């Protein structure tokens, strides 16, 4: 009997449950899809380091899933409480008919159970389907071989999903029973009689607050877009806070202001249903200012996250090609030895590693480390402990230090001889440089450092380098780098004439080369051998230490490692961005949709009246469309505006990853928003349309 009632209840309030169900199904399927990635990747053929990255990705996704399940859980609780409120009258009827509160609780429990199981089943089926598509993306991101791939069902993900949503439903059930326990019949019966008092806000106050909010927003925008680099964490938080409050105030004042504006345009206002439409919108906005603000900010985060994620991935893959033009780099910063008994320390007394020529050192052990290269450059950098960043900034130092307090200004600048640099550029296939006797050039490709250095170089001040007075050939930095990287990270290297380089300033030994390999197999063999050889070599050095502790400092990078790390990072960023972005979008869409549906139910008498005085169905649909459209569009528009400036800041932060292909990323992001947010809009519009037809029992 009870079961029958709950089933028929669900069927009757189906239009209310559509959004709820839709949200549950999307939420569950997204949850499953991302948790199944680990299992899927296991079926793909990937290299060892990539499977490590996949393991890391899996861990990260699990971590984020906790956050996601909290967000979805809150959303579900919110939605179900919302539905409860809508049904107060129905419960009142049950109560007056003599049904006990316990029975009603049981009824709700059954309903939640039915919906929960239904949505879990539907969500999992959708999720399993979608995750097959997702594998294509996984394979693409990890450049994996898909031939071994087959249809997968991740048992682990299924269990996780059921567990997570099961708990959420349990919370919902508890909440519902609790709410029913508090019901008072009189409140229930009067629940729909509470008329909202609508009044026009004072237009002057509205205008003033709107202007103030715009000004505050302008300030926040300026702060984040102009001086991203100057921003201290506390300042940043303050700016975000100002932005959030301004958003709230804009929505608060927009409701009244929009209406005033429309009312001033009389011919437009008194045309068809416009007066009604504007009043509806205005009252809708003014009763949902808080939700609008929250949704706007969530959309803002979503847009930024998605765009940034796609953009990082895109440019990373591009960057590899340009910033990693050789196969192998050994940077041997030096070594030093000390008595075993002494305190271990990484540095010599004067804080400097002793320069060691690593090729010579290998030669001494009868090992030719250069034998595998078709081409290579072996050189070293110079440093002058009296020529630090502070010195090279000259007069501008004080000012720059104020702006960028986090930079270490006491590090000595890296100096490279012109001939060494040009040899390397030939290896890299890049243009070489020329210098007069008393000139130097700074090469740099890390944008914020470039800006800092350019300010000084523009002044053309002479600098004291390695005991010589030199002037910059150019009034700015040139684009260039030495180390193999995946991103433009070169903070600045001084290229000087060969004549001034005194070997006593020698600092770090560098060996950069390309493997003598024709095929991929040979390449792999060479790489494995050179890494193994170097390991053996180090082990030998460690043994022959004459009773002293030898500490060496070196960094060995190969193109393979850099690519792997980049691909992995790109994939991780993409997945996390997608995951969080999708969940936020769902949450925004669902909240707006539920608000709008309840609005439509409340407005039903108005629509019935409009119909009675002969307003055409078409006009009513149009009015509804405009109302819901503006309701959905307003937070999105403001979020887009926020994002334009937010991304400017983001670009600054993400600069080291490179920010190419931003338009493409924005396009993909827009597409996803259109799909999910637009989907919610459409469902809301269609459901509202049925609601305001008003020809069912409600």
């Amino acid at each position, binding site marked *: 009997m009870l079961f029958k009632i709950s089933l028929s209840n669900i069927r009757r309030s189906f239009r209310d449950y559509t959004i709820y169900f839709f949200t549950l199904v999307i939420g569950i399927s997204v949850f499953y899809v991302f948790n199944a990635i680990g299992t899927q990747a296991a079926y793909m053929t990937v290299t060892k380091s990539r499977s490590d990255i996949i393991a890391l990705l899996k861990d990260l996704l699990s971590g984020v899933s906790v956050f996601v399940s909290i967000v979805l859980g809150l959303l579900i609780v919110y939605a179900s409480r919302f539905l409860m409120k809508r049904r107060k009258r129905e419960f009142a009827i049950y109560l007056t008919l003599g049904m006990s509160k316990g029975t009603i609780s049981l009824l709700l429990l059954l309903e939640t159970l039915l919906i929960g199981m239904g949505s879990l089943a539907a969500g999992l089926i959708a999720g399993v389907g979608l995750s097959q598509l997702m594998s294509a993306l996984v394979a693409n991101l990890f450049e994996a071989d898909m031939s071994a791939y087959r249809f997968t069902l991740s048992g682990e993900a299924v269990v996780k999903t059921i567990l997570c949503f099961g708990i959420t439903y349990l919370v919902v059930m508890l909440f519902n029973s609790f709410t029913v326990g508090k019901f008072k019949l009189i409140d229930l019966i009067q629940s729909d009689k509470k008329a909202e008092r609508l009044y026009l806000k004072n237009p002057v106050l509205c205008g003033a607050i709107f202007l103030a909010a715009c000004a505050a927003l302008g300030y926040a925008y300026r702060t984040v877009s102009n001086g991203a680099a100057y921003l201290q964490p506390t300042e940043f938080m303050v700016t975000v806070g100002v932005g959030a409050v301004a958003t709230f105030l804009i929505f608060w004042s927009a409701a009244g202001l929009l209406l005033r504006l429309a009312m001033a345009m009389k011919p437009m206002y008194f045309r068809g249903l416009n*007066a009604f439409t504007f009043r509806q919108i205005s009252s809708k906005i003014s009763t949902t200012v808080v939700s609008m603000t929250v949704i706007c900010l969530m959309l803002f985060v979503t847009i930024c996250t998605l765009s940034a994620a796609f953009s990082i991935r895109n440019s990373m893959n591009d960057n590899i090609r340009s910033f990693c033009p050789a196969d192998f780099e050994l940077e041997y910063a030096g070594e030093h030895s000390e008595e075993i008994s002494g305190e271990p320390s990484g540095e010599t007394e004067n804080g400097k590693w002793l320069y060691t020529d690593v090729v010579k050192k290998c030669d001494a052990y009868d090992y030719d480390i250069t034998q595998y290269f078709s081409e290579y450059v072996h050189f070293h950098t110079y440093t002058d402990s009296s020529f630090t960043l502070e010195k090279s900034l000259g007069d501008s130092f004080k000012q720059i230090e104020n702006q960028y307090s986090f930079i270490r200004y006491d590090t000595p600048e890296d100096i490279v001889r012109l001939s060494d640099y040009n040899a390397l550029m030939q290896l890299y296939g890049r243009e070489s440089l020329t210098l007069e006797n008393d000139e130097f050039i700074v090469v740099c490709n890390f944008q914020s450092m470039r800006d800092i250095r350019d300010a000084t170089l523009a002044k053309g001040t002479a600098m004291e380098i390695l005991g010589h007075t030199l002037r910059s050939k150019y009034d700015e930095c040139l684009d260039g780098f030495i180390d193999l990287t995946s991103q433009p990270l070169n903070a600045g290297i001084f290229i000087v004439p060969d004549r001034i380089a005194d070997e006593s300033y020698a600092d770090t030994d560098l060996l950069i080369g390309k493997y003598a390999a024709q095929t991929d197999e040979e390449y792999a063999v060479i790489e494995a051998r050179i890494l193994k050889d170097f390991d053996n070599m180090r082990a030998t050095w460690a043994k022959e230490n004459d009773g002293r502790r030898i500490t060496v400092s070196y960094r060995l990078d190969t193109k393979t490692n850099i690519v792997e790390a980049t691909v992995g990072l790109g994939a991780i960023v993409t997945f996390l961005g997608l995951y969080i972005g999708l969940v936020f979008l769902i949450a925004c869409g669902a909240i707006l949709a539920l608000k709008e549906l309840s609005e439509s139910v409340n407005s039903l008498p108005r629509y019935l009246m409009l119909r*009675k005085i002969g307003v055409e*169905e078409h006009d009513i649909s149009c009015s509804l469309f405009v109302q819901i459209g503006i309701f959905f569009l307003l937070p999105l528009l403001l979020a887009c505006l926020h994002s334009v400036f937010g991304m400017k800041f983001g670009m600054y932060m993400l600069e080291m990853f490179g920010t190419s292909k931003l338009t493409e990323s924005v396009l993909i992001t827009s597409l996803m928003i259109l799909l999910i947010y637009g989907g919610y809009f459409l469902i809301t519009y269609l459901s509202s349309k049925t609601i305001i037809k008003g020809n069912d029992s409600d």
Partner: protein
Amino acid sequence: MALLEIKNIEKYYGNKSSLTKAIDDISFSVEAGEFVAIMGASGSGKTTLLNCVSTIDRVTAGHILLDGTDVTKLKGKALGQFRRDKLGFIFQDFNLLDTLTAYENIALALSVQRRPVRQIDEAVNTIARQLGITDVLQKYPYQMSGGQKQRVASARAVVTEPKLVLADEPTGALDSKSARLLLDRFHYLNREHGATILMVTHDSFTASCASRVLFIKDGKIFNEISRGDDSRKRFFDKIIDVVSLLGGDVSDAL
């Protein structure tokens, strides 16, 4: 030819197993400029009759001709246009849009007819003056008294100068003073504007304002009296007589 002609209409509710005959073969006609009241006990079918005339509800059988058009044959878009252009409504519960001011409520009836703004403004102000609601025009429904609300609703109903004004218990929710004021206005609209009014009421005094009263019982026309040259008092007494004949439960028919 009569403005409104109702020919043998019937209205059934429900399914085969439980059938309610809300209207059981009613015929009558209303001349242009007439003020007709319909009286009857609760559940006698008054609202149903009005809803059928106003095309809000569909008749099961019979025809309703307004100004020569058979409204029972109207469909879709034509239906809305008919209601919008030919009819004016006044409901017991006012049915004003709570989000709009009095002015906007009245203007809405004109703006959905796509009238130009200047004409709307003029018409609203004129009718407001005639109904004595000029000073409540900028108020919202919740800021008005019942009588004011009903006069605003009446203004909205007649501002488009409809062929026929339909009123369902317009004084039902008003105190006697407001009711009297409203009836005066109806009288004025009927006389000075030449508005044709069809009004449902359970109150004999309200009915005595009309030029003719139809009595309905169980979905059928039970009696009909015209005022003719009688004074209002005399007409009122005649109505009371019929009401007591009907069973006297009319006056507590709310």
